[in-house]
């Protein structure tokens, strides 16, 4: 007991020490915003002062303006090919991500569970997967275009492929990490292999599956941009390259910010789903 108390006390002192170093009177959410706000202000000021070539690097306000026009398409007088198209562009990319990603989850989770559960399946499939895995998705681009042409399927193929590996590897790891006594407990209670697979191995692997799904989602967004840069003629990746070619760097930066935002949103969605499905991991 006394050892425990001492630890607690010294921890408390440690926390106080850190607190004293930080700016104490500022609430947490404000602390979080300090660095981004300072960076944005510096960037904006540098642009306005002529330090940055705004034709190449637009200021934050120029970017926000470009995004506003791109999204809401107000009548600005001149012709703007991007005016009001943001929603459609984002939908194009998001649809591909969702399709490829869902396909990846549907493939990787069962295969991963089986590889983790059965040494026969592992010997059967794992070597093939491990030898294909080091090939980056970018290297698959020509193959994908040759197979699917300049069409949706090429993008979906790349996204699925990119998201597949991390989900698979994490699922396999999760299935293998089952505590021996949990398996024994299920067996002595008369559970069949099927029941053990669905009611013990799968729930036990869920936290690992979600870890893989978060990594996979990040790769899915990278993959959609890569595919749209080259193999499809729509979406955020296509606009990114297109805008660059016609010198609309404000649209390029707005596009980059949109990709970042959507990736962030996807991650949050997966975390929310994880908290719902793996509630037991978050209760203490």
């Amino acid at each position, binding site marked *: 007991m006394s050892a425990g108390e001492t630890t607690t006390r010294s921890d408390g002192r440690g926390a106080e020490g850190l607190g004293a170093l930080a700016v104490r009177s500022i609430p947490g959410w404000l602390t979080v915003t300090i660095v981004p706000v300072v960076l944005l202000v510096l960037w904006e000021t540098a642009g306005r002062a002529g330090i940055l070539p705004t034709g190449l690097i637009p200021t934050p306000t120029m970017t926000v303006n470009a995004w506003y026009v791109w999204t809401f398409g107000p009548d600005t007088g001149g012709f703007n090919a991007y005016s009001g198209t943001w929603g459609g562009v984002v939908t194009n990319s998001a649809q591909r991500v969702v399709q490829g990603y869902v396909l990846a989850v549907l493939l990787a989770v069962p295969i991963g569970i089986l590889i983790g559960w059965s040494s026969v399946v592992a010997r059967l499939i794992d070597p093939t997967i491990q030898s294909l895995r080091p090939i980056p998705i970018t290297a698959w681009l020509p193959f994908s275009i040759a197979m699917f042409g300049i069409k949706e399927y090429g993008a979906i193929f790349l996204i699925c492929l990119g998201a597949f590996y991390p989900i698979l590897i994490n699922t396999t790891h999760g299935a293998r990490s089952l505590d021996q006594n949990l398996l024994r407990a299920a067996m002595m209670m008369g559970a069949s292999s099927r029941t053990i697979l669905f009611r013990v191995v799968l*729930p036990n692997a869920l936290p690992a599956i979600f870890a893989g799904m978060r990594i996979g989602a990040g790769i899915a967004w990278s993959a959609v941009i890569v595919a749209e840069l080259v193999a499809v003629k729509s979406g955020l990746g296509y606009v990114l390259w297109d805008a660059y070619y016609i010198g609309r760097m404000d649209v390029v930066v707005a596009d980059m910010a949109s990709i970042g935002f959507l990736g962030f949103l996807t991650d949050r969605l997966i975390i929310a789903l994880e908290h719902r499905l793996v509630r037991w991991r978050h209760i203490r």
Partner: protein
Amino acid sequence: MLEENQQPMTENAIELSGVTKIFGGAKPVRALDDVALTVGKGQFVAIVGPSGCGKSTILNLVAGFEKATSGTVLVDGAPVGGPGPDRAVVFQEAALFPWLSVWENTVFSPKARGRPEREYKDKAKQFLSRVGLSEFHDHLPAQLSGGMKQRVGLARTLVMEPQLFLMDEPFGALDAQTRIDMQELLLSVWDELRRTVVFITHDVDEAILLADVVLVMSARPGRIRSRVPIDLPRPRSIDLITDPVFVALKREIFNQIRHEANIARLAAD
């Protein structure tokens, strides 16, 4: 024992003969060597011995988690093939499914075996209240103390209504007070059910308090060194611990274990 007298001599719940277990690997370990033991129907047998003597291995063989290298392991006269719901196991670390509530853990076995809910629901509720956890129906294992987890571990085996309970140091990880509470709970549950129990422990007090017979194991390779009948009246309570008969039994068993531990130490040197 009353129970033994009521039943014919041939009725053994567990029979091990010539059982040897060698764990393979680069340096094979002979965990059990020519073990023979019988456990009568309805008997509460405790196995004690120095650590690493293969107590848990015996239990794992009977449970069907492991296979003997040689010899026979019979339960109700039939060789053990694999684990099954006729032999309930209570693990040291409870081994509850962390994603299932107390209730779902308790009814895991009948549910996994596809029994209709009406068949086990009332019974499971009774057992849950018997171990004092009715209020914690919807709690998750992470929200329970070590003692409460072990109560669920006991309740889920009671729901199985097995012929045989195998308990692998079930209270070994609990603090002293909780351990006494659990021992008294087990005593009173056993007095009601009178099922066969094999109880592994390194706590001699616990073994004497609970069991009809205490088997003392030798140091590795494990053998049954002696069989000490505990002729203390039931129902028993924790107060027995200061009884002269209890103390004498404890001294006897303790000396045997100490002797074995010395042999083990000499062998290691």
